[in-house]
Structure formats: C-alpha cells, structure tokens
C-alpha cells in the first residue's frame, strides 16, 4: 500500500491544477494508523462537499473514507440520492450505479476484480441511501446477501428520500410526516439489520455517526470481514436536517438523542461466529501495532 499508484508524470506536475498536487502530496494512503483523526488535514478526505451545510452525511463520508483499510485497492459503488452529490469529490475509485442497482453492480465488480487481481484483495464498498437500499434496490440488496457476495453494504439511513424532497421510505418511522408524505407513515420501520442477519450477512451494525472512533471501528471490521468471509451490512443514521426541520449545528444532537438505549438507533451489532474470531484477531493485531508505534515513538524521543 503506497502512493506509488498516484504519481503525477514529472513533465506535467507544473500544469496540474493545485488540488491534484495537494491530493498526491498530502494523501494519507500508505500512512500507518490512518483514521478519522486525519479528517481535516488531507484533501483526499473531502475538503469541500455540496450537501446542505451541516448535513451529517458529510461527516459520515469523511469518517468512512478515512477508515477504509486499503483505499487505493477499494472501489466504492454509489447510487442516486444526496450521497451522489459527494462522490465527485471522493478520491477513491467509484462507480455511480442506476438507482437501486448498486448491489448488483457491486456483485459483478467484486467478482471481476477477484478474477482480474487474484493476489491483490480488492475491496468493494456500496454506499447508498435508504431509498436505494431498502425500497427500489431491495431485490439486489437481498440477492447479493443470499449469494454471499464478499462486499460491504453501507446504508445512510436518513429515513426518507431526501434528494427528491421528502418522500416516504421503508426505513421511515411509523407516523412520521414528511413534506411529500403528508398523511404520515402507516407502517413500521423495516427491520433491515435483522433481515440482513437472517439473509446471511456476517457482520451487521446499526448505529449513528455521532462517534467517529466507533464509525472507524465498524467500517474497518465490515470491510475486513467482507474480504474474508462474506457480506456485511452497516446501517448508519445520518439525519436529514433539512427535512426534519433542524439547523446546521443540530445534526450531532439529533444523532445523540436517537442512539439512547431502547431507541431506534441504539448501537446494535451482530457478528457470525467466524466473524467474531476474525474481529478478535484484527483487534489483537491492532493492539500490537499501536504498542509497537508507541515504543518506537518513545525510542525516538530518548
């Protein structure tokens, strides 16, 4: 893992727009222990975005990008929705799929990458809204899990169709009234995390993105488990502050309020027995890496 893949031809360095030079010079790829703490210092972790000011999706995106175990060997698959406004700023290979098709595209992509680069362990990560994951794309979402496709599905759950002005989604809470769902939702929120578990996902988490270190941990687990074992699913609450009538600064509090015990985004995790074993191994290695880094630091300051 290194920056070798993103070298600008020396002849053209002076004509490249400055953001590409910054991207290469400051990229965190290849850095030991890269993670959410790098957000804000590196161009590649989304400097600017075109979401609403304060939209929690913008932070969720940054935490996820900083947590990918091998960003230069990762391809993300997006879908239409507010998330698709951010992908043009993402410095990781990504494909925009037809709305709802994301898990079908990712299945084919993962298989072809595995055939083309058998020794490189390419990761595929789907990132789509709840409308794309649970309503229009539910078929391809579930089928990819049934088939044990080895990639991670991340759903940014904002409980409605935000990008098209607030229609009802399967993940909307019962009774919620949105701008384009005026009578209020008649049915319960779809329990996709449970469905994911029953459909064969090896690692499933339901959480908010209020705590960056937690997001880092679950993203890393999900990608590494998918690489070795099979499908993984993360459902993350990224409230649409615009549609629920909150101010730019209120997204974080909204997430904290919804993750209290017993509420719909209280942290829930499921791991299959094999995934548990793998996660434990990963945790041990991470601990050793941190200890070695600490020892090296102490040594250098002597």
């Amino acid at each position, binding site marked *: 893992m290194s920056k070798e*893949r*993103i*070298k*600008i*031809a*020396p*002849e*053209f360095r002076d*004509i*490249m*727009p400055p953001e*590409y030079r910054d991207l290469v010079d400051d990229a965190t790829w290849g850095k030991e222990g890269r993670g959410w703490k790098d957000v804000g210092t590196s161009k590649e972790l989304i400097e600017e975005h*075109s979401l609403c000011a304060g939209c929690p999706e913008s932070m969720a995106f940054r935490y996820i990008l900083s947590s990918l175990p091998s960003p230069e060997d990762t391809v993300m698959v997006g879908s239409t929705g507010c998330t698709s*406004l951010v*992908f*043009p*700023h993402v410095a990781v290979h990504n494909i925009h799929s037809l709305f709802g098709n994301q898990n079908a595209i990712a299945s084919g992509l993962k298989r072809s990458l595995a055939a083309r680069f058998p020794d490189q362990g390419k990761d595929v990560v789907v990132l789509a809204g709840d409308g794309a994951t649970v309503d229009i794309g539910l078929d391809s979402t579930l089928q990819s899990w049934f088939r044990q496709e080895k990639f991670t599905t991340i759903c940014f759950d904002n409980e409605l169709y935000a990008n098209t002005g607030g229609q009802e989604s399967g993940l909307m809470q019962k009774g919620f009234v949105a701008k384009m769902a005026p009578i209020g939702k008649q049915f319960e929120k779809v329990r996709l995390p449970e469905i994911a578990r029953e459909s064969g996902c090896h690692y499933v988490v339901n959480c908010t993105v209020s705590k960056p270190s937690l997001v880092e941990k679950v993203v890393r687990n999900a990608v590494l488990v998918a690489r070795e074992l099979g499908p993984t699913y993360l459902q993350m609450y990224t409230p649409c502050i615009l549609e629920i009538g909150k101010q730019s600064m209120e997204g974080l509090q909204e997430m904290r309020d919804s993750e209290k015990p017993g509420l719909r985004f209280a942290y829930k995790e499921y791991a299959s027995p094999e995934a548990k074993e793998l996660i434990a191994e990963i945790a041990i290695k991470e601990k050793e890496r941190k200890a070695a880094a600490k020892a090296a630091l102490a040594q250098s300051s002597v």
Partner: protein
Amino acid sequence: MKPYRVLPGPEEFLPPSAASMGIRLPDPDQGHIEGRIVPEEEAMERAAQVFLSAKVPTIFPGPLVLWSWNEKAAKKATAIQYLYDVIRESVSSEARPMIIPMADYRPKYPKINPEVEINPNHPNLTIWHNKIDACMFVGVHCHQANLALKIIRGGTDCFTIAMCAQAGHEDANLTFRDATPEKIMNFAGWIKKLKGTV
C-alpha cells in the same frame, strides 16, 4: 445525399455521432481527416499544418498520460512534453500554444477553472475561455474523448485532433490510432519539418 463530413463546428446543440452518419474508423497505418480515411502520414502532415496555422494550438493530455502509472505512460509524457516544446519553437510569434490537463472526468462542483483545466462534461468552457482554435486529445479514455469531442463540435469552431492509443475517433476532425511515444515524436517531426511553410 452528400456524405457527412466531420467538420469543425459549431454544428448544433446535439451534433450526431459521426459513426451514426457513416464515418468509419481507420485501419492500422491510416488516419482520417474530417472523416475521409487517409494514409497516416497524410494525416500527420495535415495535423501539423493545422497546429502551425492556429492562433492557440493546444494539447489536452488526459489521465492516461498525466499520471505515471506505468512505463509506457511515463514515456508518452516525455514525448508529449517534447511535442509541446517543438510546437512552441515552431509557431509564429502571434500564436499562443497551450497545454491544459484533463486530470479526471468527474463533473466538478461548483465549477471548473477553465484557465487551468478541461473537463469532458463541458470542454467547451475551456475552449471558449482560452479562444482555442486547434487542439489535440492524448491519453483520454475513449468514451470520455467521444463525449468531449462531440460537445466541442457542437458548440465551438475548434479543430480537434485525436492522438488515440486504440482505434481512433470518428468524432474528431482528424484522428490517429495506435498512438505510441514514437508516433507522438513523429508528429513533432512533421511540425519541425513544416515550420515556416504554413
């Protein structure tokens, strides 16, 4: 019906794809000029004349050569830089040669800076802004080049040349195919040879 010619525009808002108008791709060692299949050397000569007579002859290097991702790409970058140097030495004193990168293909929000970059989703902005009247695409993936070449033909009067590493481009006003560093150097040779004659 008169056969279709791939002429500089502005043609119309949505020009037809040249392939749909019966323009076909050249075979190896051939090129096309405005859709007419010619021997490659004839296309070289014509492209050199176009660049030497242009007010703002411009090279648009794409990601396949801007990024040093393999040895061949690195060699092409050196050849393109050489070509640019030759163009600068060979054009008249009024001409203003440029080299402007197409670093990637994503639509950029809120907008591109047409002074320093070109984007295939609205290449006309860079061409209008810099008053570019002749350009060469090199190192741009085929599907993006096709899109950009058609938009340029639609909305500008710029003469487009494709130095294509694959089978060439119907939608360019002039195309080469199977581009190698040597072929780019050969084109530079033609510009040197015709210097002062146009």
